């Protein structure tokens, strides 16, 4: 009986871990999905925006000894600005270019951010000061750490806000229209450029929130921290159906839980392999993902 109880609580703890990392993946996956939905671009640089956000928090808190709250706000604002700037400088000139050029540009931006960070700040990981702390929530044998609780809460709130924004506001309507048909949306008097920039801003702000939550869970910042996180979030977006907002949320939680399960059975070295195996299986069996729309190919 006691054995069963410990097994149960281990399982529940692993599920909570999975939900915690899953909600971060979901936040990042939303950015991928929204951008892909609107300009059909796999924004490779999205993961590295997370890295920049983490460095902003680190710099604000260590160099200026700021209180965590303004540091976090600065990180989110910084990510938003960076996302819009990248879109304006690198992606707007290529709007009419072949998709492959756009993709290579995105890879270039991603490498530029990573390597500039390495050059300016150094390759080593910087330890992160603690941003939030509090007593864990104990429910019987199950213990939910304070960070896990906050992470879940913040990400669910952000997702709810995003859903409201996309479904109920005028800007959200414009976003949906542009992703449906860019030409027709323009004819209806929607400013396509502004809508695309707004989408990048929202996606990058979510990445900023994700970066703060990520550094709460793993308190360090390094130049390449964003690439693996970004790739996994992208897998989550594909799993959920790229271009779909609820899909990205579901996909994020699914990837987080899958990783936690693989670690729970003691195969954590294979974690990355499993995530990419999921990606391949999804792409081969159902490339549109769980919630994705079927794209018709036009001649």
């Amino acid at each position, binding site marked *: 009986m006691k054995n069963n109880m410990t097994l149960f609580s281990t399982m529940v703890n692993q599920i909570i871990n999975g939900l915690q990392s899953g909600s971060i993946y979901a936040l990042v996956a939303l950015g991928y999905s929204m951008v892909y939905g609107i300009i059909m671009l796999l924004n490779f640089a999205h993961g590295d925006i997370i890295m920049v956000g983490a460095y902003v928090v680190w710099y604000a808190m260590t160099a200026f000894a700021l209180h965590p709250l303004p540091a976090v706000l600065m990180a989110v604002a910084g990510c938003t600005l960076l996302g819009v700037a990248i879109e304006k400088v690198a992606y707007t000139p290529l709007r009419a270019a072949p998709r492959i050029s756009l*993709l290579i540009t995105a*890879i270039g931006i991603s490498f530029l951010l990573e390597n500039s960070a390495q050059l300016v700040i150094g390759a080593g990981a910087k330890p992160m000061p603690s941003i939030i702390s509090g007593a864990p929530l104990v429910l019987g044998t199950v213990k939910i750490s304070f960070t896990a609780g906050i992470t879940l809460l913040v990400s669910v709130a952000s997702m709810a806000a995003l859903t409201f924004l996309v479904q109920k506001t005028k800007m959200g309507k414009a976003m949906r229209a542009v992703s449906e048909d860019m030409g027709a949306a323009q004819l209806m008097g929607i400013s396509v450029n502004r809508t695309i920039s707004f989408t990048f801003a929202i996606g990058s702000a979510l990445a900023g929130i994700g970066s703060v939550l990520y550094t709460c869970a793993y308190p360090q910042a390094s130049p390449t921290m964003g690439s693996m996180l970004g790739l996994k979030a992208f897998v989550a977006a594909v799993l959920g159906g790229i271009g779909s907002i609820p899909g990205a949320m579901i996909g994020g939680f699914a990837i987080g839980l899958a990783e936690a399960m693989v670690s729970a059975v003691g195969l954590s070295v294979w974690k990355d392999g499993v995530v990419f195996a999921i990606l391949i299986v999804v792409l081969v069996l159902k490339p549109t993902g769980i919630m994705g729309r079927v794209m018709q*190919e036009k001649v």
Partner: protein
Amino acid sequence: MKREVKRIPMPVRYFINAALLLAFLLAVNYLIGNKTISGFNAKIIMLIGINIILTVSLNVATGYLGQLPLGHAGFMAVGAYASAILMKRMGGSALGMFFIGRGFEKAAMEATIFPLGMLFGGLVAALFGLIIGIPALRLKGDYLAIITLGFGEIIRVVILNIDSVLGFPLTYGAASLKGIPKTTGFLNTYIVVILICFAIHTMMKSRHGRAILSIRENEIAAESCGIKTTYYKTLGFVASAFFAGVAGSLYAGYLGLLSPGSFGFMKSIEILVMVVLGGMGSMAGSVISATVLTALPQILLAFDKWRMVVYSLVLIIVMIFKPSGLMGTYDFSLSRLLEKAWNRLAFGKKTEKGGAR
């Protein structure tokens, strides 16, 4: 009025090219032999050769086939590990002993098993290319990019962790595979470079190559003209993987030790930068950019720190201002140049363009 334009007959063209390449090989080999080119520089020249193979092989998939695989380092890793393991085993095996028993020096024995190891590395990589290509090539564009990226990462994770599953050391994981016979020298590297460039060149001039090019231009139109697009896409992809595997085995024999960390996503991008900068679809462009981008950080050591920053900037700037790369799809042809010069001398003025051939 049709004007006679003198053309150099094909056997002569081939002879001129072959003679020049042979002269280049022998000259550089002689200079390395008498130490005019230092050992350090000879190493760089070998590395350039390996990178040329990697770049022209990725160019088959990216430039000619029009796909964007991001797992090229994975094929290189497979080829490197396969040939390294084979060469290590063969060196100590009955075959190796047979050669040594017949009065072969150890180095000569290793040089004999080197082609076998290279062929094996290429074939295993081609097999992986087939296994990965069949599902991946059903997808297009970014999906293909991301699925090959996934496969590349899986290959790296498997090489890193396979020993614990097998129960005996095969790849030595993160501890790196050591003691590989150092079989890669200047002469064999560049003979392989020339053979591969020639093979790709003739393939692209053949019926099969034209079919591959037509897929790049417009897949739907190609299919409606009766080209088996799936077959030719797989063919191009497998050929690309095979050559990457050969480059990997040269790399194994060049370094003498392998660790999975050197075959990450970063390596795939490095190769892609070389292809994109040179021009997708131009072999001359691939060769030039591989040479420059390999030699530059070695010559300007201070530049090494900036290398990746500059690479990424170059990638972005080239994409924004000249998306087809520096050379576009233009390919250098010595005989075309000679013909032009010849005709100008013969007719005293500029002749019409001979057209691509």
